Every structure is written in structure tokens, then in C-alpha cells.
């Protein structure tokens, strides 16, 4: 089966959990900005959680879906419709007749994910299907999706194949059918503060700057993308000018250049030479990935232990979701 891109949307690319293991060669990690939503969309169509999905930014694409396609939408609500009828998110949707999936604009969040049963059949480059835009590798021909592209889907799981057979027997006038159950993931849009630990060079900053960073709000400016969010707010200053030697960077590092913080994200470079005042905790990165321009970020300081506990809690939650979704899908398949 395949999906045809009728309109590209603002920035639509294939992403998975990233290209790990190649940073020592300077190769960026890339991957989904909101990995929680990516994994969830995959689970809903019985894919491996790290399969590639379409990451759609603010203005989604227009997609021609073939009858028999099973997909799930997660992350940002980009107002999806088929033939003018709203398409419910966070659950599997079965396409009954060839139809066009349209996205009207963004209602909540920044990045939506579309996973299809069987995943996307694109080459695995250095262990990942993620699109690396600048190096033009991975994803669909190393680039963002464009009108006219056709992406083939892979082989779906047995349960999904059974569900597809069952659906094909159903007489329906509707272009799609969705299950009544869904997963609630409103937490990724919560506006609560973003939790962070002290960064590697935290002590290099003036007391005032450290205080401001964790008390003042910062604006996500228009100069923000998958590489990082350029933030604007209190000016952050070093105690004294210091020469910094380039060192590796982790997802969620907050480096300071020219007094302004930059929150480094999925397409961050592997190493950098600017001092880092903070490191956002893993559990809050999905929320960061859903922020749109012009929102305020507030940071709050937590310990490393706290960060670990929140991460383990989120992983546990994901595990629980995986189990219950799997059970639901087995029921749908009549097994």
C-alpha cells in the first residue's frame, strides 16, 4: 500500500527515535521532536514503537490514502478531516475507500505524528529512517516530503492484517471508521514549567543570571526550529569571560550565546562551544517539542534524581499504555 502526498504542508518529514551511535562521526541524531507521541502513534497501529512516522509541523499536508490503510494520529491537533468530517486522533482509523486526509491548521501543539500500520518502507540509513535534512540522508530521499511523492508502507502485524480483513467485509458508506476508544495524552500540552537540571557550565554564570533563568519567563522566538529554540528574556551573563572548549551536547541542553539561551533539540549539532546553563529533563522534552512560537517557557530547577524518577515514571506509563493498546487491538482483531 502507499500514501501519496498531494500537498506537502509546512515541514513534513519522516522521523523515528533518531540515529544513535554515529555522533562520534559528527552525524546528528535527528528523530522526532516529541518521541512520546511518535511511540504512541506507532503502538496504536501495532508497529514497533520506534518505527518511522510522519512528523507534521503546524500546517499539515494533504494525503491521498488508499482503502485498507490503517493509521493513527498523535501529538499536535492539526485539525484533521476527511471529506469535511473530523478524524479522531489517538486511536486507529481504518480507511474504507480511497480518500484525502486534510489538515486544517493547528489547534493545539506544534507537531503532529501520523503512523501507518506496517510503517514506512524507506531505507534504513545508519540504523535509522529519520530524515537528516542538511546532509540529505534518511527518510524519503533525504528530504522533507513534497507534493507528488509516493511513500510505500511496510508489512503490518498479524493483528492489523486480521482487522483489515474484518473491516473489508463491513458495508460502510463512510470513507473511514475509527474505534470508540482512545488514549488521553493531554499532558504533552500542559503549560506547567519545564523542569531542568544545572548545565555543565552553570557555575560560570552570575548569580543573577542563574536566578533569572529559573524565575523569569523566556519567549520562544520565530528563529526556532528542529535544531533548537532561540529564547528571549533576561540577558544571561558569565561571571567573567571564559574560553570554552567544544564538547558533546545532549538533547535538551540550554546553551547561551550572546546572552540569549538556545534550547538544543532533535537536529542539534553533536558538539558545541557555548556554555550550557541548564539541561532539560527527558520527561519534559515531549512538551518542549509541542511548543509553538511566541509561547513563554518557564524553567524550574530539579535534581538529577528527580529527573530520573520522572523519566522512569513516563517509561512505565508508556509500558502500561503499550499493554492496554495491544489488548484492545487483539480484541478488534477478534483474537
Amino acid at each position, binding site marked *: 500500500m502507499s500514501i501519496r502526498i498531494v500537498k506537502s504542508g509546512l515541514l513534513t518529514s519522516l522521523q523515528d527515535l533518531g540515529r*544513535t551511535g554515529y555522533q562520534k*562521526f*559528527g552525524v546528528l541524531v535527528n528523530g522526532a521532536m516529541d518521541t512520546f507521541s511518535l511511540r504512541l502513534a506507532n503502538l496504536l497501529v501495532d508497529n514497533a514503537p520506534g518505527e518511522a512516522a510522519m512528523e507534521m509541523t503546524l500546517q499539515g499536508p494533504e494525503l491521498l490514502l488508499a482503502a485498507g490503510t490503517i493509521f493513527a494520529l498523535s501529538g499536535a491537533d492539526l485539525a484533521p478531516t476527511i471529506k469535511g468530517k473530523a478524524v479522531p486522533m489517538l486511536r486507529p482509523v481504518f480507511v474504507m475507500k480511497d480518500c484525502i486526509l486534510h489538515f486544517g491548521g493547528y489547534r493545539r501543539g506544534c507537531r503532529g505524528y501520523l503512523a501507518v500500520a506496517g510503517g514506512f518502507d524507506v531505507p534504513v540509513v*545508519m540504523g535509522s529512517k529519520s530524515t537528516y535534512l542538511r546532509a540529505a540522508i534518511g527518510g524519503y530521499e533525504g528530504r522533507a516530503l513534497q507534493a507528488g511523492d509516493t511513500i510505500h508502507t511496510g508489512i503490518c502485524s498479524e493483528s492489523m492484517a486480521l482487522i483489515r480483513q474484518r473491516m473489508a467485509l463491513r458495508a460502510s458508506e463512510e470513507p473511514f471508521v475509527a474505534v470508540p476508544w482512545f488514549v488521553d495524552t493531554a499532558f504533552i500540552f500542559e503549560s506547567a514549567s519545564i523542569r531542568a537540571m544545572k548545565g555543565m557550565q552553570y557555575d560560570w554564570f552570575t548569580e543573577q543570571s542563574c536566578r533569572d533563568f529559573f524565575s523569569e519567563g523566556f519567549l520562544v522566538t520565530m528563529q526556532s526550529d528542529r535544531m533548537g529554540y532561540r529564547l528571549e528574556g533576561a540577558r544571561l551573563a558569565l561571571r567573567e569571560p571564559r574560553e570554552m572548549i567544544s564538547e*558533546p551536547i*545532549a538533547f535538551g541542553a540550554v546553551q547561551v550565546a550572546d546572552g540569549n539561551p538556545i534550547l538544543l533539540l532533535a537536529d542539534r549539532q*553533536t558538539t558545541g562551544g557555548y556554555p550550557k546553563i541548564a539541561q532539560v529533563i527527558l520527561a519534559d522534552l515531549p512538551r518542549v517539542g509541542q511548543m509553538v512560537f511566541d509561547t513563554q517557557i518557564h524553567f524550574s530547577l530539579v535534581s538529577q*534524581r528527580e*529527573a*530520573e524518577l520522572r523519566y522512569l515514571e513516563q517509561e512505565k506509563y508508556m509500558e502500561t499504555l503499550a499493554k492496554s493498546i495491544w489488548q484492545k487491538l487483539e480484541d478488534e482483531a477478534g483474537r
Partner: protein
Amino acid sequence: MDDIREKLRNAKLLPVGEAAVLVSFDTKIDPVVHQAVRAFAACLEQHPFKGMTEYVEAFTGVTVFYDPAKICGEGLLQPDPEQAYSYQAVVRYLQKLLSGIEIAAQDEPRCVRIPVCYGGAYGPDLEAVAEYHGMTAQEVIHLHAGGAYLVYMIGFAPGFPYVGGLPACIATPRRKSPRLAIPKGSVGIAGSQTGVYPLETPGGWQLIGRTPLALFRPEDQENPSLLRAGDRLEFYEITQQEYEAMENEGSVPRP
């Protein structure tokens, strides 16, 4: 050998968030520190731990990335309540590794020769660099191609080498206004660094030449970077004709 051992013995372990640890051997760029980085990276390659996702070598240390959910921090004696238990378990493991490193006789470093067509359209800033130092362009070329270089690390962009060893007399500040697109293969100087751009990117480096060699080779999934940390580097001058011939050769797909 003893000075490398001392660096390894005195390593500092520092948290990089809750999913990575920096093993730092010093705070300055130095060939001995670099040897310690190499020795430790080689050891990690041999003895990875469960849950480790990757490691990245840099000038003064190695950053080790891991998944806290895959590290068992249970059974730690009196864990620090502020620190992640997975971090403490990883630190314990790495400390053990550090104390037991056998420094193998250092392999003879690879020497990679990089052909460069200096000046002209390929090196639009060569004249400005020469002028800055009150030299002729030929003198700059001679000095640049005569240097003994060491690749300290690969980072910033795929295959991009951080190189030490630029003769101090041709160190040149970055351009005042950065270029929006620096062509792939450009050889430049920025302060006391010299390097080669593997991909077209924006940047403020002074461009003195260009190489037809591909530094980033994504088709080679085992070794996508031509250069590796620890390589010795030599630049040598080629003519524009040689450049073009090599470039055409390079466009033939590898087996």
C-alpha cells in the same frame, strides 16, 4: 605512558543531564590528554555496559550516553538522594573501567593526506589572509601545507575534523560577516584552527582552498567519516586541473 596513566587516574566524572556522563581528563587541549581520550574510548568500545547507547570523544574527555531506564541502580550502597541512581551505577562502572585500563602500545596513527587547491575561486580569502599577515599567498600555502596536524575530534557536522597544529603565524580571526553558504570541501582557518567543511553550511571561516575529497561518506555506514579522532593530517597543494580530475574520479560510485 605514565603521563597518560596519570590523566586516566585523575579523570573527573560529571553529569550531563540524567542520561549521560562526561569523563573529563583535563580542561585544556593537549596531545597527552588526547591520548587519554583515545585510550578510554578504545576501552569503552571493548567493554560497553548494558544500557549504554553511544559515546562521543572530544578534546578533553569522552561523553557516555545511556538510557536510565535500562540501568539498574538498585543495590547501591547508600545512594546519594540528589543524584540519579542510574548515574551513580554508571559512574561506578566507569570508575572501575578507568582503574583497570591496560594502555596497549599505541597503534601507529594513520596519516591522511588531503589534496587542496589553494586560492582562486576555491580559496577566496587566501589573499586577505596573506595580507593580514603581511605575507605572500604562496607563503601562506607553504606554511599551511607544511604543518603537522592532529585530528582531536569529529563533531559539529558529519565528518568535520577539529584539527590542532596550525602554524601560529597564519592563525587568522574569522570573517566579520559570515557567509550564508560555504561550499562542501572548503579548507579554512578560524583563529588557531584549520579544518575542512564536509557539507555546505553557513560559516565565518577564512576560506583558503578546497579539497575534492569527500569527508562525509554516508554510503559507508560502518565508517561514514573519512577522518577519525587520532589521525595525523597533511595538506598538499594541487592545481585546479588536478582538482577537477580528482573530483570527476570521486563522482564514480564506489564498489
